[in-house]
């Protein structure tokens, strides 16, 4: 996962670069929460552009990050969802 923080907008962009399954999700979750805690953004964007596969563990991941973002007072957004990922939601 790649992360970029834009200080002026308090915006954190998290680009997921691996497939999202039960195996990879733990690492994505750990990194995402770490970055959110580190920067305390007002807005978090998950970029799905490079995600070639996602199963139901992705749903759990997003719901969990949504709750975490809420807790630190940030808004969560999903971008570049491909049809494949959208179908799961």
């Amino acid at each position, binding site marked *: 996962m790649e992360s970029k923080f834009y200080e002026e907008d308090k915006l954190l962009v998290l680009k997921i670069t691996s497939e999202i*399954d*039960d*195996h990879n999700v733990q690492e994505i979750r750990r990194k995402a929460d770490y970055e959110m805690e580190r920067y305390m953004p007002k807005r978090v964007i998950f970029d799905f552009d490079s995600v070639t*596969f996602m199963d*139901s563990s992705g749903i*759990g991941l997003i719901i*969990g990050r949504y709750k975490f973002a809420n807790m630190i007072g940030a808004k969560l957004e999903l971008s570049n969802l491909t*049809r494949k990922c959208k*179908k799961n939601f």
Partner: protein
Amino acid sequence: MFNNEMKLEFISKSSNEAFARLTVAAFASQLDPTIEELADIKTAVSEAVTNSIVHGYDKKQGIVKICAWLKENEIIIEISDKGKGIENVEQAKEPLYTTKPNLERSGMGFTIMESFMDTMEVESVVGLGTKVTMSKIIKPKEEKEEDEFKMLMTNT
């Protein structure tokens, strides 16, 4: 009769989830599926294999077995484990039902298998294991083109 058959066994490590879905997808590609049909199969396999690893064996090591058959233009996939089994299959199939909510599990596994495949059946015996059988018809290319043509005609 079946045109083709494959069997695959691997230990219940989560790193094998990708291996399992890619292997089944490679086998299914003989039916010339679309990218979307292939993605459906990969997702359904991933859900079933994850269930076996996470719930069936629950951190213990065991063997997950996959058998798949090609019959005309249909793929039949059977994924089984010798894990702890499911007490109430009907309840487990309910959307959002999960026995591990603290681990951010969505409870959507069976729902996704059901909606991405044409048929899905679960056989489970507590203490003995679980077997999920799924099938999907891969439409031949000509039929897909016909469908697309019909869609275009009805839209105009």
